[in-house]
């Protein structure tokens, strides 16, 4: 039976000698690897910088292009907002960081202004509509278009504030939550039923669609009405008390 390094004192000494002999070699290899990597990285950064400079206007103006750029960065593990300076590597190159932060501030404004009305939950499409309207009023032309991906990305930059801004998927839609409470599963179920019924929901619909007991349905609806402000009550409907969810509606005001 052959034992690696051999047995006894002699074997141990041989092992130590061998590993000492390998040391310089291994550090030489890793040094050359690091050098190579650094060279690659600087080449890559140069290329990316050149790319970002060349396409600066496209990145700022064209949401499609911006998304592709974002994807490319993500694929190679670069966060364009990260970096040693505030606003990231790209801030001074293309103003990308500023652009995202400005958008984030606009999103916060929209959420705060509508929070009493919708309980801090708003559909992403609605946020996008209001952002576009605000920007149109500000005299920005259509080439400065904002996409849904931009909204999601800006919301992500808000997460550091710990204010609970988060994109959640409810049923078939993406919604932006701006209050720290998590949506519980019953609330999500109520929102989903409301989405499918033109924004309205009542006890009977939940019993029928979700197989809930009337008590569970009543409790969920009452919490959403009184505790969370996520729905409004309507006592003038034919079928009795109905609840309406403002956050699943699109409000086409000018």
């Amino acid at each position: 039976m052959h034992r690696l390094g051999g047995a006894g004192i002699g074997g141990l000494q041989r092992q130590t000698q061998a590993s000492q002999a390998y040391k310089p070699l291994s550090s030489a290899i890793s040094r050359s690897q690091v050098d190579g990597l650094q060279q690659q990285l600087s080449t890559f950064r140069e290329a990316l910088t050149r790319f970002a400079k060349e396409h600066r206007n496209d990145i700022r103006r064209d949401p499609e292009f911006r998304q592709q750029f974002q994807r490319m960065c993500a694929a190679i593990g670069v966060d364009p907002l990260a970096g040693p300076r505030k606003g990231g590597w790209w801030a001074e190159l293309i103003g990308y960081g500023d652009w995202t932060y400005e958008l984030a501030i606009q999103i916060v404004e929209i959420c705060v202004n509508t929070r009493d009305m919708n309980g801090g939950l708003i559909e992403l499409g609605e946020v996008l509509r209001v952002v576009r309207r605000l920007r149109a009023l500000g005299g920005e032309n259509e080439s400065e278009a904002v996409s849904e991906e931009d909204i999601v990305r800006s919301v992500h930059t808000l997460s550091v504030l710990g204010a609970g801004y988060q994109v959640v998927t409810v049923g078939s839609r993406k919604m932006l939550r701006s209050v720290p409470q998590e949506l519980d599963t019953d609330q999500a179920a109520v929102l989903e039923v409301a989405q499918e019924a033109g924004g309205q929901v009542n006890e009977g619909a939940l019993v029928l669609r979700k197989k809930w007991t009337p008590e569970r349905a009543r409790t969920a609806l009452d919490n959403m009405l009184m505790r969370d402000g996520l729905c409004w009550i309507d006592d003038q409907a034919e079928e009795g008390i109905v609840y309406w969810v403002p956050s699943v509606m699109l409000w086409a005001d000018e």
Partner: protein
Amino acid sequence: MGLELAPYQAPSGFLLPSIHSWSAFYTYQPNPRTFLTQSQDWTSLLLAYARFRRLWLLALSDADAAAAGLGEGGKGTEWAEALHNPRLRPPRTISRKILLLVIEQLIASDRAIPDPPKQTSSVVLCWRSVPEWAGVLHEWALKTGQTNTILTLFEISNPAVESELSGMPEVLLRRAIAVLARTGKAQVIEGGEGGGVRFFP
């Protein structure tokens, strides 16, 4: 049923906001934060509508009149477009509780004057604030060359040539005059037939 709510142009030409097409807008919201936004929306809707149609008076009974669909020319119908939505199924009408609380808020914020005094079921609306009306009144007196002469209140609110002040209720007119009197731009003259006023340049 669609999820998009759009503004609606009423037969009078007034553009109703999209929330007017939302059923829950007509029921009092028991959540205080929700009611805050609901009452603000109703307040601005009612003031904008009154201004658009030059409606001076708002009463709690206007909600019932709107719901009952009183005939053309009736006092209730001029508010019907705003207080009632016949396009919803079933039609919705502002609840009395909302209207009462909104009227109280309007009084508290100097946007309405109880008429008669000391009650909250009938008010004169100030869709321009009293100081704003004072400015309009003074400008009208200057432009029509009626300074330094004594005018009755009736002459001001029923001028031969239609003016912005046409039809203005006396209680509002008196408050606007009082503002001008405090700055020496008008003098109230007591006398029979409701008295008069003299404007100074």
